[in-house]
């Protein structure tokens, strides 16, 4: 194909793996992937972590992250094989013809330099524009991306703008040198849903207006469906399916693609509230020591035995702080917390061992929630030993039973956390919480660090365990799809307050308050044109006001 901008042929990428307890090995992580991209088109690369999507994206810049090396194949850009040009050729390519937008803009910007200097740097360095031209172009891009005060925006330092704005600034940085191709590596994954939608719309418009081609890498099929012309599904470094966005979403050919499209389809009938409550949070107000600002304002919620209360909100809404107040890590200033009919001491040290046992917690990042120097057996066994005094064979037997409950074989008992996958780690954390035979488990964003399919598995497991053990969950999340899947009742939090609270059906049906409406409409849907619909709807509403 001669008119293709990017032509990747039989790309092979190798890496050095460090299997636990064994010498390092050379492995192949991308096995001969080929694709082409025409001028002005957007190709979505989708897959779970470890699928090789970022690795392939970076290969378009001729780059391999630490330990990763392009071992075979060709990458043609504008009619030349960039892998044959040596360092000099790559230097001319990167930042001029091909640019990159990283997942974490906060980590990608130099905190000591003003945004304008960083946004125009590549364009000036490659002598594409003079300083004045580049700055004029940057301002134009700031305006196009919907950034506030585009003329003066560049005078700010990275820490002076919000995360969503920074991600847009990063897009401006990538577009400033008028590249032919931009590689977007999960540009909206780290953002709140309500912010994601704005950034997504801005990126889409900028791509469209500048006519640049793009590789859009993400694990979220619903997101990529909004911006991509074509989609390539990857798994374990192999191409699974490649086709137009419409075909992938509406008529997937491969089983794996079908799974991705139908993910989050767990249906859960909400249970009717019961008169008794396992947890009652009554008018709780809390602030961090040394501050005058209440992060929790007058919070009252109730959770019934064996049910799930989902606490939803974006970052900074106070939902994790609520968990800290309930566990006693942050004693509330006012209000009371009643657990299973008894009033809990506000501080951790004032609680009995029975209080602690019946209230367990599961964390977002499973890898830091387990001591890397303890085996799975020790991690799950410790609560058994600590609360029930189990020892030796009895303890080991019970650990094996718990492993079975979380659908893992008992062969894992002597493994270390580093030898487990992300989903397995989270399962072990669930087993550790279950080992205490709790009445309530606080789940703090337990699925948000996981791939959609793995997250689905965890949610199913949690639902099954609830049925069997009758344990109640306080489920903290920013993801409304997860909420739909498992909640019986919902509390929507915004800036430290509960703005909407009730059963799942009540909360998720109209009439909505403004914030809940914003939150609900921001969840990407697995259909084409969803983004345009929402943006149009919002424009109409704001015009109506």
């Amino acid at each position: 194909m001669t008119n293709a901008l990017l032509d990747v042929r039989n790309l092979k990428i190798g890496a050095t793996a460090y299997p636990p307890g064994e010498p390092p090995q050379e492995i192949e992580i991308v096995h001969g992937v080929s694709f082409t991209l025409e001028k002005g088109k957007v190709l979505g690369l989708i897959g779970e972590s470890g699928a090789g999507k970022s690795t392939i994206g970076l290969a378009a810049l001729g780059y391999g992250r630490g330990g990763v090396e392009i071992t075979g194949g060709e990458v043609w850009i504008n009619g030349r094989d960039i892998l044959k040009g040596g360092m000099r050729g790559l230097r001319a390519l990167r930042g001029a013809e091909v640019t990159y937008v990283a997942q974490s803009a906060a980590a990608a910007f130099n905190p000591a330099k003003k945004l304008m200097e960083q946004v125009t740097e590549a364009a000036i360095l490659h002598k594409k524009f003079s300083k004045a031209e580049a700055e004029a172009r940057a301002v134009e891009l700031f305006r196009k991306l919907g950034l506030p005060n585009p003329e003066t925006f560049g005078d700010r330092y990275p820490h002076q703008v919000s995360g969503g704005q920074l991600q847009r600034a990063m897009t401006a940085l990538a577009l400033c040198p008028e590249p032919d191709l931009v590689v977007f590596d999960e540009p909206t994954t780290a953002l709140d849903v309500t912010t994601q939608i704005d950034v997504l719309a801005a990126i889409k418009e900028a791509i469209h207006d500048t006519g640049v081609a793009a590789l859009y890498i993400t694990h979220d099929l619903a997101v990529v469906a909004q911006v991509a012309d074509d989609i390539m599904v990857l798994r374990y470094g192999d191409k699974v399916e490649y086709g137009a966005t419409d075909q992938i979403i509406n008529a997937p050919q491969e089983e794996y693609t079908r799974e991705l499209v139908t993910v989050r389809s767990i249906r859960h009938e909400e249970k009717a509230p019961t008169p008794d409550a396992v947890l009652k949070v009554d008018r709780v107000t809390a602030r961090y020591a040394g501050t005058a600002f209440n992060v929790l304002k007058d919070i009252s919620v109730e959770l019934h035995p064996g049910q799930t209360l989902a606490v939803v909100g974006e970052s900074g809404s106070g939902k994790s702080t609520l968990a800290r107040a309930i566990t006693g890590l942050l004693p509330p200033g006012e209000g009371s917390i009643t657990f299973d009919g008894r009033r809990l001491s506000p501080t951790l040290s004032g609680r009995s061992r029975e209080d602690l046992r019946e209230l367990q917690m599961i964390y977002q990042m499973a890898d830091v929630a387990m001591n890397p120097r303890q085996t799975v057996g020790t991690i799950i066994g410790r609560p058994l030993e600590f609360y029930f005094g189990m020892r030796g064979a009895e303890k080991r037997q019970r650990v094996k039973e718990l492993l079975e409950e979380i659908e893992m074989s008992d062969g894992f008992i002597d493994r270390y956390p580093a030898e487990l996958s992300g989903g397995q780690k989270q399962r072990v954390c669930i087993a550790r919480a279950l080992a205490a035979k709790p009445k309530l488990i606080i789940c703090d964003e337990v699925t948000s660090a996981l791939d959609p399919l793995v997250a689905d598995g965890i949610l199913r497991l949690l639902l099954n365990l609830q049925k069997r053990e009758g344990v109640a969950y306080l489920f903290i999340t920013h993801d409304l799809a997860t909420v739909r899947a498992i909640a019986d009742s919902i509390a929507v939090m915004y800036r430290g307050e509960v703005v909407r609270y009730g059963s799942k059906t009540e909360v998720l049906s109209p009439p909505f308050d403004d914030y809940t409406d914003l939150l609900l409409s921001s969840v990407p849907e697995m259909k084409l044109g969803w983004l345009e619909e929402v943006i149009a709807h919002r424009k109409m509403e704001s015009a109506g006001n």
Partner: protein
Amino acid sequence: MSMRIPFAAAVGLSITAIYFIVALFAPLIAPYGMAEVVGDVWEPSSAAHWLGTDNIGRDLLTRLIYGGRTTIFIATAATVLSFTTGAILGFLAAVLGGWADQLMSRAIDLLMSIPTLIFALVVLSVMPVTVPMLILVMGLLDSTRVYRLARAVAVDINVMDYVEAAKLRGEGRVWIIFREILPNALSPLIAEMGMRFIFMVLFVSTLSFLGLGVQPPAADWGGIVKENKDGIVYGIPAALLPAVAIATLAISVNLVADWVLNRTTSLKGGRG
């Protein structure tokens, strides 16, 4: 599991091992008695005296072997003391936090603001200079450095979710310090241990050189330098030999420490 030891580590390991074995079995290995006068003053090396003799005609190789025994023993004991004290206090400060942490840390700062050598000299000039006293003074003075490191490492570990999970479980401080923090703090501490051990060797040698360390006729490396330093002007290298011994030991111990650090930092459950 394969046990492939890199070349540098193997060299370090064998030299260190030789030093420790020689120190341990000094009476069996040394060709003469420790304080035995066997020849003339500053004899050059010969078949009978491989490294020659010292300022009063004792066999220099014998003196070096016995000196190594004393020096290595004192340095090892002082390192162990300084690490136990420093690490436990440092971990405790990190776990307790707040007031207790401030109090301990500022007290340690105060101790560290006095130059170690001068402090040691003052203490040893009023106390009886015995080997246990040397170990105690050196170990405690050096534990301030270990405290600093241990506290810094533990403060980082203390905010990890698994420590929070242990606190929520209701675990006591002893469990948190020894089961959650210690295994994860070992790598930097072990790396530091090699370094501190060598500082101890230098420290005890300096003290002996100044006359407040190991007392004659007992041999130690610093003392050998002191006894033979006048020979340097006559071109007699006796005083330099302990320096060579200290340097080779320092390098080999640190080669081993580097290797241990490399093996333990990549989180493989600590057994990789």
